[in-house]
Structures are given as structure tokens and as C-alpha cells.
């Protein structure tokens, strides 16, 4: 059976085609761009909620998309263990839809931050990180105005090993300088208890080809390779 992945397109998405390109042409998995009102979970083995400004970020980033029928469809996938990856605005949507705990607030600097940063792998036992090692430092870009992760239940998140990535310097140290947005505990990405849903602010789809990376790294590709292999093994 052919593996199929969906990239859900909301009005205002702008990283949807980047994700499509990487999945189809770099990873080589059949991937469809699906308008959010037309998304049917039964046709897909995994789904990606891409970056952008769904519904103009009105009221709060992600809140209006969180009420889209696409999220009702994705909730079925969430329950049966199929992988769901939210990138940037996709992460914001997943927290607002309560697939993931916590919230993403305006950057502490009040500025939109767009640059290459480093993240450290905290949990490689997820469908999106099993091809990485804990402690690995990945070079990856961020581009967001609301990426400051906040939770009122940090202890539970830590105890359940739901923190998947933290912002670090290139040596893997969690410094304040390495934190681009003021996130609590330098948190860059988290997963649900079952591990099949992950959200992160950085953009793996922009870090999957050497020609696009300042140091010719392809660390972003590991996310999609992991996801594809997870699907094959299910």
C-alpha cells in the first residue's frame, strides 16, 4: 500500500508548499496539499499542519484554525496513533486545539524573529525524532512572532518526557542567548503523552537541503525520514 501524507492548507498558510516540496521531492513520499475544509483523514497515513498565519492570526495565532473541520479529522488520527506534526503556526494550532498542552505567547522581544538557531534533542523516542540521538544539536531556522512557550504545568511535562526539543547554543548548552523568544525552560518543541503528535516552532522543511543551509546541514530531513519510517513500521 502506498504511504500518503497530507499537508493541510489553511487560508493564510505560507509554508505549505515548502513542506510539500520536501516530502515529495527530497523524502520521496506521496504528499497532497489539502484545503482545510476538504481534508479526509481516511485517505492519509500522517498529516502536517504547516507554518504561516492561518486566518490572519486573528484573535490569537491558531485559534480560528483550531475550530476548522480539519482538526476534527485530525483528532481521529490522533486517537488511532497516526503521526501529526505541527510546524510553527501548526504548533500554535495544535495547542489551541488542545492536542498539545500549553500555549505560545508573543516573543519576549516583541519582535518577529527570523534566523538560524540550534535546538537540542531531548526525546528521541517519538515518531519524528527516532533517527536522532538525545543530546544531538540540530541547526534549523525559526520565523515567528508568537513562539514563547508557556505552560502552567511544567513539572508534568518534564516527568512525562514530553519536551522533545530545547533551544541551545551550538555546544548544546541551554543559554538565555540561545532562546530566541523567551520560551519557558528554552522549550522549542513538545509531544503528547502518546508521542504521535508533536509541535515545534522551528522549521524542519527549511533545513532539509544542503543548498538552503548556511553550513550545508540537512538536519530537518531527519524529522521527515523518522516520520516516514514510523509509518512504514506501524
Amino acid at each position, binding site marked *: 500500500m502506498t504511504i500518503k501524507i497530507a499537508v493541510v492548507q489553511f487560508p493564510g498558510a505560507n509554508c505549505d508548499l515548502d513542506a510539500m516540496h520536501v516530502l515529495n521531492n527530497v523524502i520521496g513520499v506521496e504528499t497532497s496539499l489539502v484545503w482545510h475544509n476538504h481534508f479526509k483523514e481516511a485517505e492519509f497515513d500522517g498529516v502536517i499542519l504547516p507554518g504561516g498565519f492561518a486566518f490572519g492570526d486573528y484573535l490569537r495565532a491558531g*485559534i480560528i484554525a483550531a475550530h476548522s473541520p480539519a482538526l476534527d479529522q485530525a483528532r481521529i488520527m490522533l486517537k488511532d496513533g497516526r503521526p501529526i506534526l505541527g510546524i510553527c503556526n501548526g504548533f500554535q494550532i495544535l495547542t*489551541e486545539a488542545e492536542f498539545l498542552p*500549553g500555549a505560545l*505567547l508573543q516573543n519576549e522581544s*516583541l519582535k518577529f524573529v527570523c534566523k538560524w538557531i540550534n535546538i537540542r534533542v531531548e526525546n528521541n523516542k517519538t515518531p519524528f525524532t527516532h533517527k536522532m540521538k538525545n543530546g544531538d544539536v540540530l541547526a534549523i531556522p525559526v520565523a515567528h512572532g508568537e513562539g514563547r512557550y*508557556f505552560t*502552567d504545568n511544567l513539572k508534568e511535562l518534564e516527568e512525562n518526557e514530553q519536551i522533545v526539543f530545547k533551544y541551545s547554543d551550538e555546544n548544546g548548552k541551554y543559554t538565555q542567548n540561545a532562546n530566541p523568544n523567551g520560551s519557558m525552560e528554552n522549550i522549542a518543541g513538545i509531544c503528547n503523552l502518546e508521542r504521535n503528535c508533536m509541535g515545534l516552532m522551528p522549521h524542519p522543511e527549511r533545513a532539509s537541503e544542503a543548498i538552503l543551509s548556511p553550513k550545508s546541514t540537512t538536519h530537518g530531513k531527519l524529522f521527515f525520514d523518522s516520520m516516514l519510517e514510523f509509518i512504514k513500521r506501524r
Partner: protein
Amino acid sequence: MYQSEFEIEISLENKPAARDPVAETIKRDLLAKKGYDLISKVRSGQYLRIILKANDEKDAKEIVTSMCNDLRIFNPVTQNLNIINVKKL
């Protein structure tokens, strides 16, 4: 059926535990620098003015509160909902 129209003003404000860099900047880089150092605290937020049909003020408040809870108009993790004012139109 509903008798009258009401106007409800609500504000959404970050909880004390969630830092509010907009308000911190207004206080530190504007008010304090321009001599308003008597200001001890500022909090920013969002404001919505809603007009709806309801039986009375209590009913109007209940409808708006339940709508805000159901649809996550405020984020319960980070924000508090305040009803600032209710008036009959």
C-alpha cells in the same frame, strides 16, 4: 423570545504568571522615561465589544461567558476573561 439588545465589553488579559512584555515595555520605555514614575503597574490585553439579544443583563452575561468558554475566545492556560461592562441598548 429575547426582549432586548445588550452591549457587553470584555477584556482578555494574561494571567499574572504569564509575562506581558507589551505592558512591561510601555511602562519601562515610555511612562517611566517620560516622568510618569508614579505608575507602578501596567497590563495589556485584548478588548471585544459584543452586541447581542438577551432577556436581561444576567442572561446576556451568561451567554457571553459560555460562548467565550466553549470557543476558547480566551486561552484558559494563559488568559483571564473579564466582563468590564454590560448595558442595555
